[in-house]
């Protein structure tokens, strides 16, 4: 039973996803095979498509890791979106504004920029972590709601202290100097070295979970906090450290987006990468390495849906539906494997 289910359930999930989205495409009045063809072609079918998908996947890997690391320790950080914006803002503040005043060498400034972004995410999330460990305030509520606070804060900064005077009145921040921008991995595409950094972070998170004492403790706390405490693990400290790592990853997502793609902060720089990171993490079953393919899958669906919509006229919302159905199907499949559900 178990081996069959372990292989069969994910395959079944893929099948369910295909069938449900095929029905929807059909309903939208487009030919199913041609639409799927256009979707795949647009997401993965050419050099351009692949680099676009990987560019889109880069922030998703960071936010996916942020969710995976936190969820594994049962700290439900729903606030990666806000931490991403704070990270982006901190990156521009250090790299663009402070850096212009201090005249530091570019590599030093670049490192300082990344550290500032990570710290911004970390410190912001640590508030929720301390509230949770000291006062038992539910972190789902605090992290979710403070996303909106962050967005208003960013909005204020972009219209005030950090506003780019040369932006013709648009609410956007000053730009990073060109020497701080991430190099392109492939010339004449948008794929930047932030993707490599994301891969490195995924590897680091996997190693951290598997080979360090802290990773072991975080897994124990996530699986059974009572038993972990009984066994002498400092549960509160583990949760706070986990939150610091999670927030840092989400903050880095913002810095990498700014340094790799936009070069300045706007209020619409993230189409919900923070929330999509949760989906990525769930699809990856919270495994840090599996976050990479999960992020690429989701990015490919969104990029592909754009060109499918141009080719056969199916609305781009189909990408959201496919991702949502895939998530539900995978979650159900996981439960079937885990609890060995059998029909009778």
């Amino acid at each position: 039973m178990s081996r069959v289910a372990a292989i069969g359930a994910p395959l079944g999930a893929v099948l369910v996803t295909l069938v449900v989205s095929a029905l929807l495409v059909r309903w939208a009045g487009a030919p199913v095979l041609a639409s799927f063809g256009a979707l795949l072609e647009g997401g993965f079918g050419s050099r351009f498509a692949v680099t676009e998908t990987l560019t889109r996947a880069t922030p998703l890997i960071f936010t996916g890791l942020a969710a995976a690391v936190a969820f594994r320790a049962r700290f439900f950080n729903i606030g990666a979106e806000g931490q991403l914006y704070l990270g982006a803002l901190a990156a521009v503040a250090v790299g663009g504004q402070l850096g212009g005043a201090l005249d530091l060498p570019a590599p030093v400034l670049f490192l300082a920029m990344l550290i500032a972004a990570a710290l911004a995410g970390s410190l912001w999330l640590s508030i929720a972590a301390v509230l949770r460990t000291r006062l038992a305030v539910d972190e789902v509520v605090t992290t979710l709601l403070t996303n909106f606070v962050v967005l208003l804060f960013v909005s204020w900064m972009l219209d005030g202290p950090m506003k780019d005077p040369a932006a013709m009145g648009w609410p956007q921040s000053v730009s990073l100097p060109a020497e701080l921008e991430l190099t392109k991995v492939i010339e004449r595409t948008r794929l930047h070295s932030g993707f490599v950094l994301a891969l490195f972070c995924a590897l680091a998170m996997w190693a951290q979970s598997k080979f360090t004492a802290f990773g072991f403790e975080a897994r124990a706390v996530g699986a059974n906090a009572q038993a972990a405490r009984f066994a002498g693990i400092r549960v509160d400290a583990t949760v706070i450290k986990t939150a610091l790592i999670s927030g840092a990853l989400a903050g880095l997502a913002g810095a990498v987006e700014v340094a790799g793609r936009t070069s300045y902060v706007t209020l619409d720089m993230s189409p919900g990468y923070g929330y999509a990171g949760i989906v990525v993490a769930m699809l990856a079953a919270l495994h840090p390495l599996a976050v990479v393919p999960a992020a690429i899958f989701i990015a490919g669906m969104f990029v592909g849906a754009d060109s499918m919509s141009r080719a056969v006229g199916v609305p781009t919302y189909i990408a959201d539906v496919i991702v949502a159905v895939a998530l539900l199907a995978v979650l159900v499949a996981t439960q079937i494997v885990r609890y060995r559900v059998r029909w009778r």
Partner: protein
Amino acid sequence: MEPVLRLTGITKRFGALVANDAISLALGAGEVLALLGENGAGKSTLVSILFGHYVADEGTVEAFGKPLPAGDPAAALAAGIGMVHQHFTLADSLTVLENVMLGTEPLWRPRSRIAAARARLADISARFGLAVHANAPVGTLSVGEQQRVEILKALYRGARILILDEPTAVLTPQESERLFSTLQQFVAAGLAVIFISHKLDEVMAVADRVAVLRAGRLVADVARATTRKAELAQWMVGRALAPAPARSARPPGPVVLQLDDVHVSVAGRPPLRGAALAVASGEIVAIAGVAGNGQATLADLLFGLASPASGTVRLDGSVYAAHPRAVIGAGVARVPADRRGLGSVGELALWENAVIECVRTPRFARAGLLRRSEMRRFGRELVGRFDVRGPGLPDGPGLDAPASQLSGGNLQKLILGRALSIGRQGAGKARLIVADQPTWGLDVGAVAAIHARLITAREDGDAVLVISEDLDEIFALADRIAVINHGRFIETRAASDWTLAELGLAMAGRRAA
């Protein structure tokens, strides 16, 4: 005599596991049949089939000569089968009478016939000497009284066959005695009783006939008068039990654990109120008491999960630590009552659970990096040394299996082994072992293994504190027995100076004159 209940060829499989293998049994009117077997022998499955919770793969059940439809608890109730579960199914906020009436009346009847029900309940309780307060909320009753309500509930519904699932597990000796005499009244009145247990003494005390299950098979079906305890034990376990290790009669050494006027409160638990106790090197002190008199708080205190509000707790003369990590560091071996909730992390592998208490020690982690091969080696050695059994153990892939897959007994061996593997701090100092309900729900073989470990530790000069609700266990292990009542130790004597009756009285809060 025509049997009131007849099981013919009952077989029930769960996947590859055969929980009941062609079991045929008959129960006569006026008979107490004890169903004896270890955990997992198939007792619960069998009565669940009887009561309609499960459907048997093969075989039939007949009650009073008529076949019982499978998988229909309502039909079982209608046929006169009543069940008293180990974990009561009572609504705490309702009164005794309301609990008894619950589910017996049609929902659409505008007014319930309370007066008639009250009269009927009074009649039944008078007939069998089951005195209860019909208007008392069930939540205010003692455990023994709640069990009486459960029995009344079954009788009220007209049960002629009463099934009791491990009824004495929650009772004091006096309450058990009382239950046994009630059962005698039932059978004298022509009822039939199935009594499920894994305790040999009470089976010998109460049963007319004993059916022994082992690994899903009926291995014996004998009259009580023609058998002996040793024979039953051998049927139940399938082999002769190893004798308990010898214990020397030497006097205990210096005091290791000392509690003076300790007050502790833990949210949601009965507190300790002025507890005083000493446990010395080379002795086993057992804490006896009715559940809910502060034992859980005492365990929390000694596990490092709670600290005293006042009073002093000392280990080898220094103040007892207030965090699990510090308590472990001081060399205290801890075995919690809740093996799966507190004692182990079910999702982690066996070897990870084996090292979890000392994962930050230099042996297993250097500069924050795990030494995984050393951890696995330790886990493998522990599994071998403490005879932890399971699929793929001791040498196969079982070491990587999640701990949740271990049976209760093997999990307990792992937890005890882990606790005992903690190094003593400094030469010549005795270690303290705190074990809360160490054999709760375990089968005879595992109980013997755990007891042997604790006695060996005593021989090695450790100070052992056992908290238990199982008086057989207390008498089997203890050098001294301390009785806990309302959060304090009301009397402590050498085990040989207690009789069962005196102990029962003390547990109920009455000091010996």
